[in-house]
C-alpha cells in the first residue's frame, strides 16, 4: 500500500487572507519566527501496491481537473510509502 499525496497551494500572486490571519495570530502566542504564512490543502490518496506511472499520471490529471483550480492554484504530486 502506498499513499499518493497531492499538495495544492494558492499561486503566489493570489491573496491568501487565511494565511495572513494565521501569520498575525502567531506573534500573539509568542511565536515570532514567521515572516509570512500561506495556507494550502493536502490530499492523501491510498492505492494498492506500488503506484504505477499510469496511476500517477491519472492522479495528476485529477489534480488538474478537480483537486485544484488552475486559475488560482498550483499543485504537486508525490508518493509516500
Amino acid at each position, binding site marked *: 500500500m502506498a499513499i499518493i499525496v497531492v499538495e495544492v497551494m*494558492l499561486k503566489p500572486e*493570489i*491573496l491568501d*487572507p*487565511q494565511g495572513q*490571519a494565521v501569520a498575525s495570530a502567531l506573534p500573539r502566542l509568542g511565536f515570532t519566527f514567521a515572516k509570512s504564512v500561506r495556507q494550502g490543502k493536502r490530499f492523501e490518496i491510498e492505492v494498492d501496491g506500488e503506484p504505477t506511472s499510469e496511476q500517477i499520471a491519472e492522479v495528476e490529471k485529477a489534480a488538474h481537473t*478537480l*483537486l485544484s*483550480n488552475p*486559475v*488560482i492554484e498550483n499543485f504537486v504530486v508525490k508518493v509516500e510509502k
Partner: protein
Amino acid sequence: MRIGVVTFPGSLDDRSALRAIELAGGTPVPLFHGTNDLKEVQAVVLPGGFSYGDYLRCGAISRFSPIMESIILAAEHGFPVLGICNGFQILCESHLLPGALTRNADLHFICADQKVSVENVDTPWTRGYTKGQEIVIPIKNGEGSFQCSDETLKELEDEGRIVLRYVGKNPNGSRNAIAGISNKRGNVVGVMPHPEQAIENLTGPSEDGLNFFTSILKEMVGL
C-alpha cells in the same frame, strides 16, 4: 417563456430565483442537478447557496453534475445562463467564465445591502438597465473576492465585460471592485450580489434586481 432554476444539493436561493422569474412574468421551471434534462427551458439560472457544502472549493463539485454538462454545451452555443453567488462560482469552475471567487479579504461572511453600478447593459440579463445605473441589491457570501490574472483583467476591462462593479468601499478585495462579469458573447453572466433578493420592497432593500429577470423575458420575446 420558460426559465429554469437548478437545484443542487445545498442550493439556498433556488426558490427565491423561481419566485423572481414568476414575479417578472415568466414561467419558472425547477431543474435538478442529477439529470441532464433542461426541460425545454429558454434560459437558466444557477442560484446561490452552498452546493456540496462548499467542499473542496465553492462550486467545484457541482460543476461536474449531469445538468451542468447540458448547460455548458448549450452555453457554448449562446444559451443564456445567469449564475448568482454560488452560481457565479460554479460558472467560473466550469470555465464558462474566467477567473475565480476566493475568500473575502477580511475573512468575514458579508451580508449587506450593496450599491453596485451596472456597467455592461449589452447582455440578455441586463439590457433593461441603463449603463452606469446604480442599484442596491444584497450581497451574502464568504467567498466573493474575484481574482484573475492581469491579462484576463485587462481583457475583461477592454472588452467591456464587467457587468456589475461595487460602488464605494470594495467589500471583499475583488480585483477592480468587480461584482459581476460576462463571457465574450454576453450570454453567460455571473454576479455575486443577489438580484433575486431585491424584487419587491416587502422582502428586499429595493426592487432593483427584478430587471435581470424582466430583461431576459423581453429578450426571449424579441422586445
